[in-house]
């Protein structure tokens, strides 16, 4: 079955309203907490049991992350939601914000309760005016019913939630850059450690999760960690929203069980556009290495399966490429993106992304040299693991992926000065 977790209001009229959300059991987990039926330890245990892993890209276990927050430390602590959604190919958080904002709100309130934090910020990318309006309206509704504000449902617990808007910068999706940005600064990532759980917004302990991660929590606590785990597979619990785009007949978001075969997902998305042959798939956002069709058709959609094949599930952004796609072109767009978005703090990233983008564009122009490909591979390798944040890796991994599986297209273009597929 589809749409069981974050999209469970989608079939209703005005799915974003508080009544629609309550009709599917929304805010019942918060009510259980207020009734004393769910305490801190149980919540953490259920989350751990559920095998919910961070939906922002890195797949870190959410229950474990929540347990790191020093809940008994005095002073302010913050709950931050990463709704920056900048990884090319990803468009799921926008739909959670637009169509089921209350489930995110309930997830963040529960996080606040677990962490003894009374303030939350939902950081949305700067262009998200429509989702922003929905979130503002939803927060007002939640306040009216005393789910937000002071003494929530009669508890000795206050929680205030603020929507924050960025202004255009992919790097602000990196959690420490996002924190800098909330503080009103340039979005430049911080060295880690210290991690946000110890030193986050305004120097205070902060928990950062992705929109889909927070929004999964109320459903997990309502139906139990075991229920969520069983939707997926061991170590890859639950459902996941896959954003399918590119060469398919029916692009869109599909919330399906983790571990669903890729070929079923492709079918849900209407198959390859115009009945063409599948050439390759970028399975987890533009930073995940591309995988050729024959490998992809045998995989299931979960962290472990895609990981074993040498790529990553990332944010769940599945970009489908048909037989007429020129891989050098796609590589050039990708390389240019990371060059544009590098914040410039570390030289391997700043110089390396620029160099890779220039060389791939030179090949595309027909001025490639035989030694370019080995150099590209080497430069990409030299960026990996040598930078403050993971943008460096995000830029290097796809380049290595294109070279690993489609080197012949690059070689052809260098030799013949034209695309192997486009003529």
């Amino acid at each position: 079955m589809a749409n069981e977790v974050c999209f469970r209001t989608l079939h209703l009229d005005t799915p974003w309203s508080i009544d629609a959300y309550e009709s599917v059991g929304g805010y019942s987990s918060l009510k259980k907490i207020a009734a004393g039926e769910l305490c801190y330890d149980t919540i953490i245990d259920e989350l751990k049991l559920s095998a919910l892993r961070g939906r922002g890209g890195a797949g870190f276990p959410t229950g474990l992350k929540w347990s790191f927050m020093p809940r008994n430390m005095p002073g302010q602590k913050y709950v931050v939601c990463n709704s920056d959604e900048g990884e090319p190919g990803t468009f799921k958080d926008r739909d959670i914000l637009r169509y089921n904002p209350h489930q995110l709100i309930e997830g963040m309130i529960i996080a606040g309760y677990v962490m003894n934090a009374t303030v939350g910020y939902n950081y949305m990318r700067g262009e998200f005016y429509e989702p922003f309006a929905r979130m503002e309206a939803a927060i007002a509704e939640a306040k009216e019913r005393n789910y937000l504000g002071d003494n929530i449902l009669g508890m000795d617990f206050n929680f205030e939630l603020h929507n924050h808007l960025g202004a255009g910068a992919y790097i602000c999706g990196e959690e420490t850059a996002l924190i800098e940005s909330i503080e009103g600064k340039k979005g430049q990532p911080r060295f880690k450690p210290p991690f946000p759980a110890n030193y986050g917004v305004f120097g205070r302990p902060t928990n950062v999760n992705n929109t889909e991660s927070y929004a999964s929590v109320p459903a997990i606590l309502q139906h139990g960690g075991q229920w969520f785990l069983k939707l997926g597979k061991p170590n890859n619990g639950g459902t996941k929203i896959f954003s399918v785009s590119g060469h398919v007949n029916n692009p869109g978001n599909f919330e399906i069980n983790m571990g669903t075969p890729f070929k079923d997902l492709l079918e849900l998305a209407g198959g390859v556009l115009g009945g063409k042959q599948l050439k390759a798939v970028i399975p987890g956002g533009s930073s995940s290495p591309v995988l050729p069709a024959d490998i992809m058709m045998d995989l299931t959609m979960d962290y472990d399966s895609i990981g074993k094949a040498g790529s990553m599930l990332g944010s769940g952004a599945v970009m489908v490429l048909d037989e007429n796609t020129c891989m050098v072109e796609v590589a050039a767009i990708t390389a240019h993106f990371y060059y544009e978005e590098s914040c410039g703090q570390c030289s391997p990233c700043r110089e390396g992304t620029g160099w890779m983008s220039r060389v791939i564009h030179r090949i595309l122009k027909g001025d490639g040299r035989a030694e370019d490909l080995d150099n590209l591979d080497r430069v990409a390798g030299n960026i990996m693991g040598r930078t403050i944040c993971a943008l460096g890796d995000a830029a290097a991994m796809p380049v290595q992926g294109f070279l690993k599986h489609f080197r012949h297209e690059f070689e052809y273009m260098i030799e013949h000065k034209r695309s192997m597929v486009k003529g």
Partner: protein
Amino acid sequence: MTDFNYDQTLHLKNLLSPDAIAEIDGWIKKYPPERKRPPIIAALKVVQEHNGNYLTEELMQAVAEYLDVPHIAVYEVATFYSMFHLNEVGKHVISVCNNISCSLRGADKVIEHLQNRLNIKVGETTDDGVYTIKTVECMAACGGAPMLEVDKVYHENLTEEKIDQILSDIAAVELNSKEMSNVEAKD
């Protein structure tokens, strides 16, 4: 925190409508009162919107003074984030995504059609100052590729007809506002 010779006629309250000031004050309230910088981004966005889509030195200075932060703090933010324009742009900035999914679904044709219709290239503004075309990175709407954003609204699954409709809707808005100002001038 601001320059000693700061011109008081450039106070933000003299440059913006009371509504716009109220909007900025609303943002200020979201952050701890002892923190001055968090509302910078939001304030700049409000100011830019009320200044025909771009920022000037004076406006940045006025924001710095209003929020009580160093001018450089505002300037750093304005130059870092891509939604801020530091040069004059059109009243309607048409942002076309040309990242992977949009390119796979014909972003180049969208750009070509816009360029032909408006007789400008990407990065340029029409002579009447009404339109600017710019290309942007993925806007998280790849399921509706190709797409563009203008005046805070996303337009997805673009076709030539849809683009023509968007342009004529903007033209109608422009015509209306011109007529309005003519009426006001006569009064």
